[in-house]
């Protein structure tokens, strides 16, 4: 952060931002049609252009240090800018994971060269970052990953596969976690690398989800060569870097990241099913059974809000332990399941052909998304029972033994 005595105050920054935005940024067109999922290459090009505009106007990277191309201002400055930016088109696609997860992790753990190059280029709108973490061989057990990085002289050679990397197709660089020591227990043999997404040996496919979204990618590495300077943090200390990433991810998801600029949905995707709207459109609003289901939906939605308010307050005030945050994750999933179940129940026979709203059936296909994305609800239940209620931890067959000796699926 800059020296406080010479820092522009928030009020004057806000006025300057207001004038600049009005002069330079395109306004949001409220009538613009939502783009179908998976067809968003133009939006990424647009996001880069918008970010370049912000940078040339001197309003990019508000909370990043000046040394790495930011403005070195406070979260209050960022919040003021965000509030002023609401009527304008903003490069919202770059907020997650580039600015809120990847750049802060590099800032925390990277070398001077990594910070200057990658953060600077992201702020200038020249580069986009993504994460290569999850692997096809394991879902919840992230630290059990088997992508390998072998030392070859001054370089590293990577082989393996990654999956569920959000918008990797649009990115230039990835934070990639790989195993570098097979004799160490699983968390202690990992190293984080900065990898060009288009490096020779990287094959990337877009994963097509059942609702048509192609937001996620999978990658295969065949002898991808990286220089020693690609290591983020220390060799075999990659879990610490990944933990920072997961921390920044939780902060961003909770709406608390100072590196997010502007506000709104990252990607315009299929709107969630609205049971009230479906009841109206299908002419079933007068049916008492339908009205009862609507009431159940309204109940859960409201209770979910109330739980988030109470648990956030309780964790902050110390009346609830931090792992109680998993209550929110669990109830969110339940609420989403219920919304989709009720939508299908109300649509009735009309769900088959989409008469009166095609989204009902398509959203139903993605029902389990809410209990899978961001860590499965089974993991949340382990966390609640073990860390809130103090029940015995699950047996882990890979604890404290060399990872090379850990049993895993073959082939």
């Amino acid at each position, binding site marked *: 952060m800059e020296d406080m005595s010479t820092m522009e105050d928030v009020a004057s920054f806000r006025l300057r931002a207001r004038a600049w935005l009005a002069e330079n940024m395109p306004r949001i067109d409220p009538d613009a049609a939502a783009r179908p999922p998976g067809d968003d290459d133009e939006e990424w090009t647009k996001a880069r252009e918008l970010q370049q505009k912000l940078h040339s106007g001197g309003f990019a990277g508000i909370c990043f240090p000046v040394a790495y191309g930011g403005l070195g201002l406070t979260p209050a400055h960022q919040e003021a800018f965000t509030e002023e930016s609401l009527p304008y088109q903003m490069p919202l696609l770059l907020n997650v994971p580039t600015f809120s997860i990847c750049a802060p992790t590099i800032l925390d753990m990277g070398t001077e060269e990594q910070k200057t190059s990658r953060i600077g280029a992201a702020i200038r709108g020249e580069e986009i970052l993504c994460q290569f973490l999850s692997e096809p061989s394991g879902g919840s057990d992230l630290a059990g990953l088997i992508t390998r990085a072998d030392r070859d002289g001054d370089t590293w050679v990577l082989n393996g596969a990654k999956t569920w990397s959000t918008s990797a197709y649009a990115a230039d660089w990835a934070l990639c976690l790989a195993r570098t020591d097979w004799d160490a227990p699983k968390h202690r043999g990992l190293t984080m690398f900065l990898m060009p997404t288009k490096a020779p040996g990287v094959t990337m496919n877009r994963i097509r989800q059942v609702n048509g979204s192609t937001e996620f990618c999978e990658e295969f590495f065949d002898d991808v060569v990286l220089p020693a300077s690609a290591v983020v943090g220390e060799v075999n200390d990659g879990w610490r870097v990944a933990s920072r990433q997961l921390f920044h991810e939780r902060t961003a998801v909770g709406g608390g990241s100072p590196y997010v600029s502007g506000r709104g949905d990252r990607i315009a995707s299929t709107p969630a099913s609205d049971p009230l709207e479906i009841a109206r459109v299908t002419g079933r609003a007068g049916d008492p059974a339908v009205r009862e289901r609507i009431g159940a939906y309204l109940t859960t939605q409201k*209770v979910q809000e109330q739980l988030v308010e109470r648990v956030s307050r309780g964790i902050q005030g110390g009346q609830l332990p931090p792992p109680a945050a998993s209550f929110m994750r669990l109830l969110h999933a339940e609420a989403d399941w219920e919304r989709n179940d009720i939508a299908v129940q109300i649509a009735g026979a009309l769900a088959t052909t989409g008469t009166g709203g095609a989204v009902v059936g398509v959203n139903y296909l993605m029902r389990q998304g809410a209990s899978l994305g961001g860590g499965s609800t089974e993991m949340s239940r382990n*966390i609640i029972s073990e860390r809130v209620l103090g029940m015995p931890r699950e047996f882990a067959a890979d604890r404290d033994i060399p990872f090379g000796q850990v049993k895993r699926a073959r082939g």
Partner: protein
Amino acid sequence: MELELSAEQRLFRTTTKSFLEKEFPLERVRGLAERDTGFDREWWARGAELGWTAMLVPEELGGGSISGAGLRDLAIVAEELGRGVAPGPLLATNTVLAGLVAAQQAGPDHAAAIEDLVAGQRIASWAVYEPGGQWDPRHPALIAKATPGGYRLHGVKDRVEAAGQADLFLVTAATGDGVAQFLVPAATAGVVVEPQWSLDLARRFHVVRFDDVEVPASALVGSAGADEVLERQALVALVLQCAETCGGVERVFEFTTQWLFDRFSFGRPLASYQALKHRFADMRTWLEACQATTQAAITAVQDGAADAPELVSVAKSYVGDRAVQIIQDCVQMHGGIGVTWEHDLHLFLRRATVNRSLYGTPEDHRRRLADLAGL
């Protein structure tokens, strides 16, 4: 339970809790099954001394709260009553008080009755359900006909809580001008009280017959057609009911969690089985959600918020179902002993089931939510 209580509120909770634990330990509650009445009047008067009847009544009428937010304070008592499945007409008397206070400016003066109820000298109950009927307070079949001296009431009420010991009934009646409420002494000629079988061992319900009961004009509470007074009574009854249910389900969850640590099978504690751990994670989450929605409803009614009816229906819709679901699952966790008379679980399950059923079921409140959403 609210996360942040003031020092005075914490003291109030402690006093209430130790009084209940001393007077009504669970063995004593269980013994009530053998008795005609659920509680002694003298015991109730001591509860009133602790402030159990004063919280919804302004100081000029003899009441007064702990924190200035009387309903929130009263909810503390309800939670403790729930934790101990204690008897006592807390909900019944306070619901009547809420109505009398709300109507006090608009009709005949009931200050003397309010004062006696606050002092615990008299007990009141809301006579609103009718035989065979579901929750429908705005359509009573009991009729009040105007007479030269007042009104003549004719009809039957049932599920009237603690009517065997009540001195006053607040009776909903149909008049030519809409629903009216009358404060009728139990000793009035033509009032006949008969006990009903009651699911709850400590909380008794009765049929109350009104056979051409003559009451003076001064028995009217507020004015006919004053639906907002009925609404106020319902909201108060519902939030107290949800708070009480939360207290009960919280206690059941606590002792069932302990049981999971203490009980061993196949050489390991039940708490080490993932299949059971996951169910406890769900129950713990639902319990917190029950607390969250109940506290939000209490705050809304306390503040007279415009969305209070919505938030109260949300709370009843959620707590009504989740509470019995959690308790039934706790019965399952206990195994066979959970369905024995000797285990305490059924005491809590009885109360939670009664609370689920009265003042609108979760299903009733869901339909109400659809109405309120303008569907």
